């Protein structure tokens, strides 16, 4: 979409807090920490849905009120989304508190499976399934539907799509909302997985997202996928060997990639 959104991390954090709030409320009904399998699944689903809704609403608001005014001006986009991310993180601190919160995890999702002596955390399986489903869904919409064609064409050339009679502004608002909603779902999954959330969690993850995008090259989903694999693997291996230098290793990779291919692995020269 050619929008640089530094507030993406804030959507992530908002999703986590929305999920946290829903799980807390449902725990009042006795669904979460003591409930049955069905209640557990339902409560996680509700938490994800709440995150989706919150992300969508925030995305709609941000796009309509702020970002639409600064289309085409990268400098202002960076400045203003930085401000928005600051405000959103502060609102979290007002509504909840600046301190860490512990997320309640449904009984049926705690613990792990033991498959031939390999211990697999239960929620990891859920996370992988949901992640793959979201990826498949996004790819299907983008590649197979008419909407996907319009979006891809709009990214390529706004004006032409507009002259063909599509309301590109409305479509881009929708795309932005979808992006924000997915970030929020990701945040809520992360919150349940880590069992702990902080208002600053958005910024922490934003750094990784930026490194991934720089390594992979802007405007390429496959590049991002490659970048994410490299960053994730490098982080885990280096964290195992020299824990303190894990982020440094990622920055080193980024520097090397920038030296060899200044546009990223899959990026196109503009």
């Amino acid at each position, binding site marked *: 979409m050619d929008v640089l959104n530094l507030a993406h991390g804030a959507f992530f954090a908002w999703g986590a807090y929305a999920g946290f709030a829903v799980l807390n409320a449902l725990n009042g009904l006795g669904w979460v920490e003591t409930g049955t399998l069905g209640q557990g699944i339902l409560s996680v689903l509700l938490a994800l849905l709440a995150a989706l809704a919150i992300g969508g609403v925030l995305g709609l608001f941000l796009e309509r009120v702020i970002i639409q005014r600064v289309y085409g001006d990268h400098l202002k986009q960076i400045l203003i989304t930085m*401000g928005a991310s600051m405000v959103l993180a*502060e609102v979290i601190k007002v509504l909840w508190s600046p301190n860490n919160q512990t997320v309640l995890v449904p009984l049926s999702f705690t613990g792990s499976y033991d498959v031939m002596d390999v211990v697999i955390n239960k929620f990891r399986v859920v996370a992988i399934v949901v992640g793959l489903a979201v990826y498949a869904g996004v790819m299907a919409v983008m590649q197979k539907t008419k909407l996907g064609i319009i979006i891809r064409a709009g990214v390529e050339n706004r004006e032409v799509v507009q002259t063909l009679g599509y309301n590109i502004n409305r479509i881009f608002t929708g795309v932005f909302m979808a992006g924000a909603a997915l970030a929020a779902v990701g945040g809520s999954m992360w919150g349940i997985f880590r069992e702990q959330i902080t208002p600053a969690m958005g*910024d922490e993850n934003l*750094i990784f997202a*930026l490194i991934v995008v720089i390594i992979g090259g802007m405007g390429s989903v496959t590049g991002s996928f490659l970048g994410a694999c490299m960053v994730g693997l490098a982080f885990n291996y280096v964290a195992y060997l020299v824990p303190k230098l894990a982020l440094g290793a990622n920055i080193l990779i980024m520097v090397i990639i920038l030296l060899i291919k200044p546009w990223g692995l899959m990026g196109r020269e503009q």
Partner: protein
Amino acid sequence: MTGQAPTPVQMERQRQRARRYTRPGFLIQLALLACLVAGPMLMPSFRVMDLVAKIMIFAVAVASFDIILGYTGIISFAHGMFFGLGAYSVALICHYSQPVQYHHLLLAGLLAALISAVVAVVISALSLRVKAIFFAMVTLAVAEFCHILGYQWSSLTKGEDGVSFKLPGVFNADWSGGSLWGTQINGRLLVYYLILVVAVLLFVGLVRFVRSPVGRVLKAIRDNEQRATALGYRVFRYRVLSTVFGSLVSSLCGALFAMWLSYVNPDTVLGTPLMLNILLMVIIGGLGTVYGGILGAAFIKIAETWLPDLQKLALSLWPKVEFMQRLAERWILLFGILYILSVLFFPKGVVGTLRDRAEVRRLRRLGRP
């Protein structure tokens, strides 16, 4: 003189030169300088002196950020990091050298300049080749890395606890040299004057830089990169130069800040809040004005000192409503909203808007001879 009659442009320049010591701008600068020099004598309150010293340091830091953002059109999220590098080089050198001496301060300043110049060259050489936007992302990542390094490398930086140190000789807070005209002369006061001298020198340097031929080229690149390239300027080199210069000044500001506090920790000199503060100050003061830095820094720092009173007010107005108190506690929220509004509706800031008005008035006067 060549004997030819001066052109109208030359005549206008000569007229401006003749007026330069009576311009209102110059008189305001002079008055401000006099206030800063005489301030500690007239108002012997530590709170005020602390505030003024911080405003001076941040005014220069913000003005140097303005060189990068306002004059070159590059967003660097590492400006706070350079500030922190300067602060840490002073703190570590003074902390680890026993006994600490004057030349250690000089050494620390040189070290700060050297480290920040090298880091800035490396970062900008890597990421400015591509697109100015990459620079923003790379600096954000590197700055976050340095922040984490400040925490984790605890054998050197003492991690979260921070480094406290003593300044040498007459700058030491315990030193006392009697009193002059009723003002106590002590280490704090001398550090204040040291900051004043260095800050004024740096600020004058920044203003000269902006008005130099290099500064004009930077503005040209910001306004129309293709045209500047076509005119034969090496855009990449100029961008690197401006980034390195701005970052270097920022690290010296950090060194002054560390000297003033005699203490550094990762959150105050390397963290994101510092970077956000600098961004706020530059936006409120006005992009591309340099002088905006003074106003922005003064506004934010004065507001910060008054905000505890706002909290007390909230406590007295709504003693039962916890939500309102939390809102008053989160004053960054108010700053953030102010920031977004000023980026949207007031992009030139206070100084820029005033300057535009003055320019309109001048043109109108020229139009009616």
